[in-house]
């Protein structure tokens, strides 16, 4: 290991200096992207235009990799067998926990009782209230990051991660049961597939309109805009697909890993 480290350190002798504008990495294709992005796609954020337009294939398969990671987590961990354990209920107004031994179910049909998974699951008023206030703003900010990715740093990946984090905050501050009630497992799985479908669907739509795969110029035939604006809008659609897929996969991975696939309070 020291040998390989030493060899790598020796190899830095041939590297360009830090911040050198004439380094090989900065002189090949990137000047072309920088020069042509605004003219060809009307997207001032070059990172976004490369991500979704010039290198759209790459990003599409990255999204597919993320989708596969979510499916793999689900397949590895998810179990549907019920454990033979006791039930716990919390009386919400007083905070008293009721422990029912054996397999008997809910004693009283009442809104005042909520099902919890372990006797130590704490109920913290401050954390619950603050997170309830924060989550809508986090989600609003995530939507801004996705929608404004053309003009400021942001895009589908970042916004999707923030959206997923907002649901994970809910799962940590309350419990996993509350978060799953807000966004069910079935809807979450459908959304992760839907995100990839939106991305590849836009690509396939371009083929149907007679252009290459993911060549958004063709969208100008069905939208009332010119060919340059069509590329800009195609990028937006793709980013929305990426955002949905990333959000759903983040939530799916968290739910499965945190509860060992039982979707209860596992940790």
């Amino acid at each position, binding site marked *: 290991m020291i040998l390989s480290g030493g060899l790598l350190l020796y190899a830095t002798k041939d590297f360009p*200096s*830090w911040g050198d*504008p004439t380094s090989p990495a900065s002189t090949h294709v990137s000047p072309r992207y920088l020069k042509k992005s605004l003219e060809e796609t009307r997207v*001032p954020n*070059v990172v976004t235009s*490369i991500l979704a337009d010039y290198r759209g294939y*790459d990003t599409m398969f990255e999204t597919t990799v993320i989708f596969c990671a979510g499916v793999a987590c689900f397949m*590895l961990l998810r179990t549907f067998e019920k454990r033979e354990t006791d039930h716990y209920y919390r009386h919400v107004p007083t905070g008293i926990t009721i422990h029912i031994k054996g397999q008997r179910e809910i004693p009283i049909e009442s809104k005042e009782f909520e099902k919890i998974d372990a006797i130590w699951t704490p109920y913290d008023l401050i954390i619950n209230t603050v997170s309830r206030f924060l989550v809508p703003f986090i989600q609003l900010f995530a939507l801004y990051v996705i929608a404004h990715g053309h003009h400021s740093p942001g895009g589908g990946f970042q916004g999707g991660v923030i959206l997923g984090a907002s649901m994970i905050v809910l799962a940590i501050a309350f419990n996993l049961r509350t978060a799953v009630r807000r966004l069910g497992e079935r809807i979450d799985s459908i959304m992760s597939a839907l995100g990839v479908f939106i991305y590849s669907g836009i690509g396939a739509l371009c083929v149907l309109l007679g252009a290459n795969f993911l060549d958004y110029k063709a969208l100008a035939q069905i939208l009332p805009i010119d060919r340059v604006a069509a590329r800009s809008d195609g990028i937006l659609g793709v980013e929305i697909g990426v955002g949905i897929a990333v959000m759903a996969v983040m939530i799916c991975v968290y739910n499965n*890993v945190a509860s060992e696939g039982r979707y209860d309070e596992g940790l």
Partner: protein
Amino acid sequence: MNMEAFLNHLVAKYNFWLYIILMMIGLYAMIAKNNLIKKLVGMNIFQTAIILFYVSIGSKKGGTIPILEHVSGGAQHAIDPANYVNPLPHVLMLTAIVVSVSTFGVALALAIKIYQRYKTLEEDEILTRIRES
């Protein structure tokens, strides 16, 4: 290589040295640690070193973020690529970060499965249990 040349080399390229040291820390953790979670942490350090390496390749002295100046509907002025950092490594690493998070989730899922089966995460204990059975 005499001392002065070596120092010049170090000052000009110390970022690469830092990343290689970070990468070797990660590699050491992946090879030498016994606990599977520590191995995963080492893998994440390794990935972080590579991400930092890519991002630093794209930097240019005096360059700003690659969001072009523009006025809506106005005339285009010429864009000098030397004024903006290279956006390509940023794009590659942007996707790599999210992919590394989700692959880390898969790795944790595998670790949970191993724990459920062998009731331990220490590599040598897992190996003895496999030999016993």
